[in-house]
């Protein structure tokens, strides 16, 4: 007797709901063994991971604050991923967005530009610069067939060096004791707070609005349809006369715009100035978020919350239980692994097969 995977005729709706539950249970089981082996109380560890971070109002604010850039960037990336346009360089596009929005904030300085004018201008500038950065990869791909995976990734490092040069040089705060950082933004250039007693800001609303627009684009627009066709069946796209170049441009620009806005949100949100590093790797984590969310806008919202919780839970477990950071990383990896593995059950079912054919 053995167990075989058998393709389902239709994706199972029950499995779509059950797969994450199953993955969570499997993760808890593995976590139980790991924490027990380390001599830590597993229950306390789970509490530190999943409950403690969101036990306070401030904690909930932090959860949503970290989830906002993740869902924003992942949504933009998913638009391209659906058409097999692999933008890996969201981190760089985020940096460019921060440079553009931050540059505008610094230029406005104390000129008393009203917030209602300055903030939208910063967001538009961030989106445009993120798109411009992504456009380099799109152009190299459509003109020279250079892999956008490589070019967008390499441009991340160029973007980081550009930011580094700016704040070590022309944009450095003259009163900053030579620290590599810009001046603090004025209040007019900061996103309004959403929840008192927390750091949560209007960036969440922007992210949710973008998610809704992305859903409309993917589900309802012809261009979104064409991108889905190109991703699912490239030959069918060629047969139907769908422009692969337009898909590359749309996919790259959507990712660039979202990452650019996320960069502005970070600069004008929790950071409030320009620093050598504007993100703890949101641009890369968003790739995982996009796939855990199955490239679906609603799924991405949940996935970004989960990812954010894992970030906070990892910190909390390190602080409260003195767990090594490698173990928190291992635990996070286990959960993502099971989540993606459980996805198999959506399109396949397990079937117990006898070793011998049945006899009448």
């Amino acid at each position, binding site marked *: 007797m053995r167990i075989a995977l058998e393709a389902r005729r239709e994706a199972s709706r029950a499995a779509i709901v059950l797969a994450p539950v199953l993955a969570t249970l499997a993760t808890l089981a593995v976590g139980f063994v790991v924490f027990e082996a380390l001599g830590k109380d597993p229950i306390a560890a789970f509490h530190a991971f999943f409950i403690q971070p969101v036990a306070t109002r401030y904690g909930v604010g932090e959860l949503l604050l970290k989830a906002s850039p993740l869902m924003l960037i992942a949504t933009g990336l998913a638009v391209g991923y659906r058409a097999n346009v692999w933008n890996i360089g969201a981190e760089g596009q985020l940096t460019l967005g921060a440079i553009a929005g931050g540059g505008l904030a610094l230029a406005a300085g104390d000129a008393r530009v009203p917030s209602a004018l300055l903030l939208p201008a910063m967001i538009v500038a961030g989106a445009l610069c993120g798109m411009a950065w992504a456009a380099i990869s799109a152009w190299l791909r459509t003109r020279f067939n250079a892999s956008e995976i490589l070019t967008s990734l390499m441009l991340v490092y160029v973007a980081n060096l550009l930011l580094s040069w700016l704040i070590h040089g022309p944009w450095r705060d003259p009163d900053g004791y030579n620290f590599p950082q810009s001046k603090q933004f004025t209040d007019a250039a900061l996103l309004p707070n959403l929840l008192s007693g927390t750091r949560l800001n209007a960036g969440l609303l922007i992210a949710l609005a973008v998610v809704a627009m992305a859903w409309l684009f993917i589900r309802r627009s012809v261009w979104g349809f064409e991108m889905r066709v190109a991703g699912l069946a490239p030959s069918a796209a060629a047969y*139907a006369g769908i422009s692969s170049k337009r898909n590359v441009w749309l996919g790259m620009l959507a990712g660039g715009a979202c990452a650019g806005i996320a960069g502005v949100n970070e600069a004008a949100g929790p950071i409030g100035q320009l620093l050598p590093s504007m993100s703890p790797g949101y641009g890369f984590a968003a790739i995982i978020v996009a796939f855990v969310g199955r490239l679906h806008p609603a799924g991405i919202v949940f996935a970004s919350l989960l990812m954010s919780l894992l970030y906070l839970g990892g910190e909390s477990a390190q602080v409260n239980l003195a767990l090594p950071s490698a173990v928190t990383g291992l635990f996070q990896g286990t959960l993502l692994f099971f989540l993606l593995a459980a996805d198999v059950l959506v399109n396949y079912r397990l079937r117990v097969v006898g070793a011998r054919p049945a006899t009448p």
Partner: protein
Amino acid sequence: MSAAALAPDVQARPRLSLRGITRAYPGVVANDRIDLDVLPGEIHAVLGENGAGKSTLMKIIYGIVKPDAGTMQWEGEAVRIASPAQARRLGLAMVFQHFSLFETLTVAENISLALDAAEAGPGLPAKIRDVSRRYGLTLDPARLVHAMSIGERQRVEIVRCLLQAPRVLIMDEPTSVLTPQAVLRLFDTLRQLADEGCSILYISHKLDEIRALCHRATVLRAGRVTGECDPRRETTATLARMMIGAELPHPRHRPPVAGAPALVIDGLDLRSDDPFGTTLRSISLTVCAGEIVGIAGVSGNGQRELLTALSGERRVARRDAIVLCGTAAGRLGAAQRRSLGLAFVPEERLGRGAVPEMSLAENALLTARHRGLVWHGLIRADAARSRAAEIIASWSVKAAGPGAAARSLSGGNLQKFIVGREILQGPRVLIAAQPTWGVDVGASAQIRQALIDLRDAGVAVLVVSEELEELIEICDRLAVIAQGQLSPARPVVETNAEELGLLMAGSAAMPEPTAARGRA
């Protein structure tokens, strides 16, 4: 030779005997309590439409698929065949519809891969030559496979089986890739094998072939045995009735009324982008409104390249090498050519003609993105659904509804959907590649009739097919493609299968390399 004189002794003990073989897949019972007896030395047809369960049954016999229930007897003894290796040890051999040869290896190397180490020694080329001579299967063991035509590749597969001296040889749709002359040669080989006592299981849905070749036929329909007969005593019509459970409809023809040229190909040259592809050389053809022009040929002679150049999936350098409805279209893309009035039914249904994961409603939208289904860049989902429902209803497509995924449809039903979708766009030029390939008899007749009706409505129709009989049945003029060159199109009434077959085969024959070449 008289086939009746060679009929095996009906009283003989069956060499292979199946009882109550059942195998179910999710949503369908592929084989339902099937009984089958194969006598020594008989050519036994297994006849049925696509999806009737023939392939599953053969896979069960050959040990690839395990049955859910049922028993098998080999030479009177109960056996369970757990793997193809065990099947081969018993004396079963199978020639598959799709060959599994390594293109960069020689004939002898390919064959040695399938044999035990003891047999695959240095004496193998001599053995291959010996067998191929005995059965009239000309084959040079030192040739590389990639330079061989499909018919020659099939010979490699057959010789590979014969080297094992099989007692039952299974042939799965062997003639679908052959010219008429090659089919006759294959039949001679099979008859000779049967005379020597080898049993042959011959899988096909081509009724004429079965009547000409086979001693007995078992008919399958929807997974069940619906009849057993002596095909030599039946007519094509009675066999078809057993196979599809209904009369075979005959297409109605009106005399052609050819109008103005709608598709003109003028001296088209195109290098294939596939290293093993075929380069097109000065292809010229005119298709007028109100006529059906066919392109016959063995696959791999440039059909794929020609079709992608015509559809716009590949653009050609010279603008006026392809003229569509009066517009030089050589450099236009597929979408632009569609807006000029072109519709295209491709050979591959899943993945090219339709997106497998998407619903029929979305697939209806695939090539109709600018025809009333879109409002300011947004999809009108309800319009797409009713368009799909319209196609499903008017073509009696068996599907759960407009929301069913394309991959949940059988090949024939999906083809009906694709043909229906393309025709519903009101094309001025329709190109169809292998329109009835792998489609059951009933659906084939429906598709052929639709092409004829389209012609009568004044549409220019171009059909590219390997099935010569189909082309002769529906076309007004016929051309033959061979090695990237197209013969002049001639009225069908002035030509015949033999002449066309010679055109197909004459160029299908590859230059024979000298014995020394290719030998390491």
